[in-house]
């Protein structure tokens, strides 16, 4: 699909209009795949969703492209000592001398081939290189924050549900409420004060060994841990009052067996549903945390790119986040059908 669009585009620039529609029509092609793979529900589902993802990415690309360029200012505005000649060369290299519509088509063509172009601000590097350097750091941070949010959140939620109404339940839920209410830059400040200045066991910022990840991951994960705790508690309390839990007890199972074999699956469903948005939130939330802790991950680049009008780099970040959020939600949907047999893929 992408190759076809690329070749088409290279023959003759005016025909590049086709390539834009080509991306859009990826979604329309699904009925064909649907009939062909009709006896493989998962494959049909994946093809359909990938089609929608392509369409979404194209819309996001288009909106971001025009929105970014409609903001006053351009990538080279601050560099006042550029001669007119150099500026013209720059502009030619980045298609900035061409009409907006043509710029759009050229960028779209490049994006379809997987080339997001050079960074406008860090001209020695391509957007792909900058993102490749940032992704591992942001990913490490996000994954640790997520693991932290899930283990802490689920444990606290389970304890609360089992000991509902008691002192432990009330204290845990109070902490959780505070955790949800506090923005993570406030948590960051408190953590730095506690564990960097008063008890200096962690480094304050920048990127290095695992010690550098601890505070920012905690900071990033804390609000999600709090939210997961509340969701787990509500979910478990709901399930524990169900008739089939009474049945499980009537069978002669121990409390622990009832909890693990009969209550856990249903009780954690709300948490599973929340995972999609949570991962999205952790990724976008890392913009702030990375900035505070000076981690050279994607978030830092994203913020800088927007400020500097680094059109290509900002576009790269936008597309990457869109893809991630989409894929995560897809995985959550598939996970849901594995856990709950009443839910079918469609």
């Amino acid at each position, binding site marked *: 699909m992408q190759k076809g669009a690329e070749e088409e585009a290279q023959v003759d620039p005016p025909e590049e209009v086709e390539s834009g529609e080509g991306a859009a029509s990826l979604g329309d092609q699904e009925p064909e795949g649907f009939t062909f793979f009709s006896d493989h529900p998962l494959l049909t589902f994946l093809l359909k969703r990938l089609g929608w993802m392509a369409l979404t990415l194209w819309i996001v690309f288009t909106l971001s492209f025009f929105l970014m360029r409609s903001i006053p200012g351009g990538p080279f505005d601050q560099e006042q000592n550029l001669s007119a000649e150099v500026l013209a060369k720059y502009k030619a290299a980045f298609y900035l001398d061409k009409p907006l519509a043509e710029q759009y088509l050229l960028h779209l063509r490049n994006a379809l081939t997987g080339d997001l172009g050079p960074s406008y601000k860090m001209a020695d590097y391509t957007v792909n290189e900058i993102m490749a350097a940032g992704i591992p750091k942001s990913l490490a941070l996000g994954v640790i924050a997520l693991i932290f949010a899930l283990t802490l959140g689920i444990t606290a939620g389970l304890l609360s549900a089992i000991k509902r109404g008691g002192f432990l339940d009330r204290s845990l839920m109070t902490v959780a409420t505070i955790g949800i209410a506090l923005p993570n830059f406030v948590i960051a400040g408190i953590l730095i004060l506690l564990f960097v200045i008063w008890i200096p066991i962690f480094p304050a910022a920048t990127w290095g060994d695992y010690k550098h990840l601890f505070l920012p991951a905690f900071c990033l994960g804390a609000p999600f841990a709090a939210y997961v705790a509340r969701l787990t508690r509500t979910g478990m309390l709901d399930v524990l009052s*169900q*008739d*089939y839990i*009474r*049945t*499980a*007890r*009537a*069978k*002669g*199972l*121990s409390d622990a067996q009832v909890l693990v*074999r*009969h209550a856990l*699956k*249903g009780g954690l469903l709300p948490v599973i549903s929340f995972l999609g948005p949570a991962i999205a939130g952790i990724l976008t939330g890392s913009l702030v945390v990375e900035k505070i802790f000076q981690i050279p991950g994607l978030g830092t680049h994203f913020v800088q790119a927007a400020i500097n009008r680094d059109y290509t780099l900002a576009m790269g970040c936008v597309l990457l986040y869109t893809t991630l959020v989409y894929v995560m939600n897809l995985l959550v949907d598939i996970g849901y059908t594995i*856990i*709950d*047999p*009443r839910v079918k893929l469609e």
Partner: protein
Amino acid sequence: MSELSETVLDVQNLRVTFRSEDGDVRAVRGVSYELARGETLAIVGESGSGKSVTHMALMDLLPQTAMISADRLRLVGRNLMEMSPKEKRRMRGSDLAMIFQDPMTSLNPFSTLGTQIAEMLKLHRGLRGKALYAAAVAALAEVGIPNAEDRVEQYPHEFSGGMRQRAMIAMMLAGEPEVLIADEPTTALDVTVQAQIMELLAGLQSERGMSIILITHDLGLVAGSSHRVAVMYAGRIVEMGTTEKIFADPRHPYTRGLLASVPRLDQEGGELYQIPGTPPDLAHLEPGCPFRERCEFAV
């Protein structure tokens, strides 16, 4: 039915009280009965009469707020009052089993029926591996579920209401209980399916020689399927006797009221009788007969 000799369940003066902010709710106020091997005892009464609570207490399934006391609670010769929580747990499902009203919500929607039945076979009969699987299939087949080999792999939502209740029965009988408490087993089912389920229970009962406690408010169900009837009102058994006697010669005005409020096919239309008023507040019972406010014979 003549040799109803050996007592499997002996309940004497069972009381259940719930602590609440509104005062103590005395849900069960001294229930006594004996259940013979192979017998079906119907417990009849309207909602809130204490018929379910009595048996949830026997199963030890009531919440912590319930206070249970009795002069005697014996199940096949063992004293339930002296059992540790662990022993009570072992008794559940093996000696004393219970099936519930709504088979849709009473089965775990997240696991297959095979898994849910196998859990019982593993726990109470120690089966493992291939024998376990075979026994689960056999259990489903025994309650009249066709294609049991395929059905064990299915989830509750893939079963019809009647089939679900059959599966529930298969599951709860997997531990080979002495006594089965059936708490409104057909209330959620339509009439033709009700008859099939009662027939199934009767068949299984005569095969296994187990005793059944049938909790219901449906006197029609009682007439065809039980040996004796106990009528409960406000936490007490107000009348108990053989089914024939209760239907032919009810003594308590509440029993008469219940019988009069059953719709009958052999009588011409008219308005259906209903017992006036509502059951008393069990938190604030006054001395004397709790039925007197609703009784047509009260002066």
